[in-house]
């Protein structure tokens, strides 16, 4: 089977999962449209038509919120007016901005899961990484040039995140403490550590006592990709793509990567084959935390410019979902992160334009995960034959 066919085959179930989830989302929009439903008795056709029009408006807003309006983009490009171009392409760039931390954390989850480690601690690792980056940047303010601050902050943030991920890896390898419990608990500890750090004068924004850090954009900022006003897309996105390539190479083309995956397949067999399974677990968790920490660092130094304890907003948990959707493959993670980025960005505009609460997106995302986790369900709905066992191994 050639690569294209195998890719199409692998993508079929996730795509059907997304389509099914969106259809069920539409059903929810209809049955919660009380204004139209109240007319069901008197004028059923108008009521249903109105409700379906609501779905169209909602999903239409989601599409234009995620990708922009093609006609408007063309007109703006022809006009050459910077501000018009920025406004027209902003939905698209915002989708990429939203995808960036999802790529980092999605890769983080993929690597740990490949080693058999169910890392639920992406949120904690992300925010501890962000704390490391923020502390470094503020410590170096006025001491070093902006470029040095930028690199140092990202490196330290990555190491902080890695260290935070290493702890549950170490505990698992040495004591057998289950990583699901330790990573979840470390999320809580991370949140408190960050709040505590934000109470001190060193990081905290002066003038109010509120737990938010000083604004860093005045002295360090990840450079933007497009020189347009109000476009936040920066080189963090490019680094995220590079990391996906690196992660893919590491997992599938290096000995360490093979050992790591072997530990995930069968710990006992890996040990029997003379591999250091404990070492693989610790390495996987360090790399996982480091990727999440790098993602957090790019958020605080780049798009947000400030540390607060609501930085992540559940990205670490969404990452688990999208990594599973991606079949734990780095290329898949990038595609799934773009999809989730588009859903969340589009969902925001859907909320503003149509009043359909953003919470519907959680519902849709949860359904996507459910369908991916239970492939039999989608196969049954669409009457797809299960793949032959050898095809699964080859993939």
């Amino acid at each position, binding site marked *: 089977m050639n690569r294209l066919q195998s890719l199409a085959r692998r993508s079929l179930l996730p795509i059907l999962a997304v389509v099914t989830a969106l259809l069920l989302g539409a059903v929810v929009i209809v049955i919660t449209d009380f204004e139209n439903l109240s007319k069901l008795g008197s004028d059923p056709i108008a009521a249903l038509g109105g409700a379906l029009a609501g779905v169209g408006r909602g999903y239409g807003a989601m599409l234009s919120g995620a990708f922009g309006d093609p006609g408007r983009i063309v007109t703006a490009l022809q006009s050459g007016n910077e501000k018009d171009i920025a406004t027209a392409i902003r939905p698209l760039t915002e989708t990429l901005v939203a995808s960036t931390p999802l790529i980092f954390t999605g890769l983080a989850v993929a690597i740990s899961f490949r080693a058999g480690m169910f890392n639920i601690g992406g949120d904690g690792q992300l925010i501890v990484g962000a704390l490391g980056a923020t502390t470094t940047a503020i410590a170096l303010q006025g001491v070093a040039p902006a470029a040095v601050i930028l690199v140092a902050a990202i490196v330290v943030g990555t190491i902080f995140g890695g260290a935070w991920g290493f702890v549950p890896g170490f505990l698992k390898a040495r004591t057998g403490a289950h990583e699901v419990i330790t990573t979840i608990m470390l999320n809580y500890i991370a949140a408190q550590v960050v709040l505590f750090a934000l109470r001190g004068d060193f990081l905290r924004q002066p003038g109010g006592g509120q737990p938010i850090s000083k*604004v860093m954009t005045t002295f360090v900022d990840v450079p933007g990709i497009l020189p347009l006003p109000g476009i936040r897309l920066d080189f963090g996105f490019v680094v995220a793509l590079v990391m996906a390539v690196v992660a893919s190479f590491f997992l599938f083309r290096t000995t360490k990567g093979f050992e790591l995956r072997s530990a995930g397949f069968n710990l006992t067999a890996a040990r029997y084959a003379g591999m250091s399974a404990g070492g693989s677990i610790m390495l996987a968790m360090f790399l996982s935390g480091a990727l999440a920490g790098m993602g957090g660092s790019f958020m605080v130094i780049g798009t947000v410019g400030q540390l607060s304890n609501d930085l992540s907003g559940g990205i670490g948990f969404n990452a688990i979902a999208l990594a599973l959707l991606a079949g734990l493959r780095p290329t898949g993670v990038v595609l799934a992160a773009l999809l989730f980025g588009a859903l969340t960005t589009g969902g925001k505009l859907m909320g503003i334009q149509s009043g359909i609460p953003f919470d519907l997106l959680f519902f849709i995302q949860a359904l996507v995960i459910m369908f991916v986790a239970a492939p039999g369900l989608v196969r049954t709905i669409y009457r797809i034959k299960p793949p032959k066992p050898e095809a699964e191994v080859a993939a």
Partner: protein
Amino acid sequence: MDWKACVAFDTGGLGDKGFNDLAKKGLEDAAAAGYETAFSEAQGATDYAANIQRLIDEGCQTIVTVGFLQSQATADAAIANPEVAFAQVDTAWNTAGPDFIPGNEDDTPIPPNFTGLDYQIDQAAMLAGYLAAGFSESGKIGTYGGQQFPGVTRFMDGMYAGIAYYNEQKGTNVVLLGWDGDSTGTFVGGDNPWNDPAKGEQLAQALLDQGVDIVHPVAGATGNGSIKAMLDAGKWAIGVDTDQAISLAEYAGAILTSAQKAIDVSVLDVIAKNAGGNLGGEDYSGTLFNEGVLISPYHEFESVISAELQAEVETLKDQLSKGEISVCEYLARGC
């Protein structure tokens, strides 16, 4: 009316029956008054600037942001979009610039298109504190906050000052547990400080065990659990942000009054002001004098609270309005 008014909420979220919902009510009142409206919700810190930008792109002419987490995003947007009017709930403009040190080159005067909506809630809370001190049978009043934010401790300051003033006037020794009038007190903390009613019940029970008979929780929906516990114990509570005897009608039997911010009124006011051509340039400060802060009607307790105590609260309100008394005079840390 040809004016589009919008609200950008932070991650605190709608449905708190307090702060955020009050801003929402202000927007709904604006819609009822004929304005075009829209609002956005945020899931994390990356959403703030993006949501404000979306509202601008949607043609919003007044954008009200809620919560201190959005301060920087709001300030940046106000400077970058001089044709759009901005207002922020619970914030005053920071004239000292990003370094917060006044008197240097990054100082930024308030832009002509910004209105900070700030509330001197300690004034209203002081009235509630005085009332509580006069009403308490055990002479012990309790308070706690969700997290130690200035917007929270301002309520607790007011309670402290009201009780201290009562003691000074009457020679009594009513005490406040949970806040020392300076910088130390009880806070819920944890990962869910604002939305944990069960925890609120426990905290109220702990205070009841220490002999407290009136509690003033400043912790969103967590505090609602405390009010329930006080009702179950046949004791009382002081509400927060909104008239909780109405928003939490099922617990009205325990709610003496609430220290209230008229956020909904000021949101509607600022929208009307903007639509009239005045885009801002001056912060609004809600006081007892301009009725931006107030204590709620006593409802069921109208006939229970002695006429004498009610009259004394009225007198204190007068004195605070006229500036004859200030809250900080009665704080442990002073002015």
